[in-house]
């Protein structure tokens, strides 16, 4: 797979239960960057097989356009996950989300099952991407080895529900209970060059609290957020898309650094701020994000 595919825009990843056809049939109209068809927690134990048949036929039949289709498979401790992987590969999903991932071995185990399914169904070898959901203290501690476990892995996500239980705490509006997890997983993701996504916000009536959490996510450096309702999508896109002022500043920084570098000047001032080459990649990333979001059509 190419880096463009691995690093594509993923501001929002919308969870949809694969048990509910009404949710799956047209979720692309809400224009999330990705959907996550859920075979795990949102599906009753007695309906795992039915959800898999729905998933497979949906993947084969419904055109999601540019919306990426990822599937959250059942946990590796269950009897379901291997069949989940087979259905994902045969159906042509773009990615698999590994639930409750705790080690590099977990990633490699799923990778091995994907390879086997790719051979069985004559799918493009290496095309299926992976992401890991980190839901436990052990997963957070092992985040770096998880991030580096496979070339297929494009990102890691924090799953707050199980993590809070394991930490013997609960949701707090300040986010203090996830401070260590968010910091640890983000550090691992950045160190290994993969994307990082924050956990869901489940109180759909608290849009103010949701907005505050998304701002925190952007400021911390996350690439996007898992969402559970279409209502949450525009808020995340607004906050994660650079605004006009941010874009103008990034343009000025990129142009100034390139022009000064051409003249052999390493450090200089723009609008009263000291700049050097260290600022270039951040400004370029802002423009790339703006371009991918459709907010910038410039030539930088």
């Amino acid at each position, binding site marked *: 797979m190419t880096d463009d595919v691995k690093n594509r825009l993923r501001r929002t990843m919308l969870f949809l239960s694969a048990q509910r056809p009404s949710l799956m049939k047209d979720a692309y109209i809400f224009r999330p960057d990705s959907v996550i068809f859920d075979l795990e927690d949102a599906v009753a134990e007695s309906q795992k097989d039915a959800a898999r048949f729905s998933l497979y036929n949906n993947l084969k039949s419904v055109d999601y356009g540019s919306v990426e289709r990822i599937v959250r498979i059942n946990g590796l401790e269950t009897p379901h996950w291997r069949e989940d992987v087979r259905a994902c590969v*045969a159906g042509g999903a773009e990615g698999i989300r590994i639930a409750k991932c705790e080690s590099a071995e977990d990633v490699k185990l799923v990778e091995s099952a994907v390879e086997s399914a790719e051979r069985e169904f004559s799918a493009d070898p290496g095309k299926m991407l992976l992401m890991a959901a980190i839901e436990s203290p052990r997963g957070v501690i092992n985040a770096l080895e998880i991030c580096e476990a496979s070339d297929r892995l494009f990102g890691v996500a924090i799953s707050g529900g199980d993590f809070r239980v394991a930490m013997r705490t609960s949701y707090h509006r300040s986010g203090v209970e996830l401070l260590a997890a968010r910091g640890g997983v983000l550090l691992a993701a950045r160190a290994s060059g993969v994307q990082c996504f924050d956990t869901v916000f489940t109180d759909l009536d608290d849009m103010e609290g949701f907005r505050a959490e998304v701002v925190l996510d952007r400021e911390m450096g996350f690439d996007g957020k898992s969402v559970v309702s279409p209502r949450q999508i525009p808020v995340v896109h607004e906050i994660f898309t650079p605004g006009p002022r941010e874009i103008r500043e990034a343009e000025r920084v990129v142009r100034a650094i390139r022009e000064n570098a051409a003249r052999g000047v390493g450090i200089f001032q723009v609008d009263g701020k000291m700049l050097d080459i260290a600022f270039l990649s951040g400004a370029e990333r802002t423009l790339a994000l703006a371009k991918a979001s459709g907010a910038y059509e410039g030539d930088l």
Partner: protein
Amino acid sequence: MEIKKTAVAGTLESSDVQVTVEPGGGGITLDLSSSVINQYGRQIKKLVLGTLENLGVKSGKVTVVDKGALDCTIKARVECAVYRSNGQTDGIPWGAL
């Protein structure tokens, strides 16, 4: 495949379809009710019978209660009901469905 025992898949929620398969001889008996039967009844019957044919099912009683499901949902529920009637949840020949 045979329909070995009675099995049900799907729900009566909007956009879903409930499919019940029961053992029976002498070909396939299809009982369809749908909120859109006047518009899509013929197409739904064709889809159900085509799915059963693809699975190799030659006889049995099939009851379909449609609540405005997409074709892919109808196909999924028929396949699930038939595999449930055989007690099979793993090793599904996905590529051939």
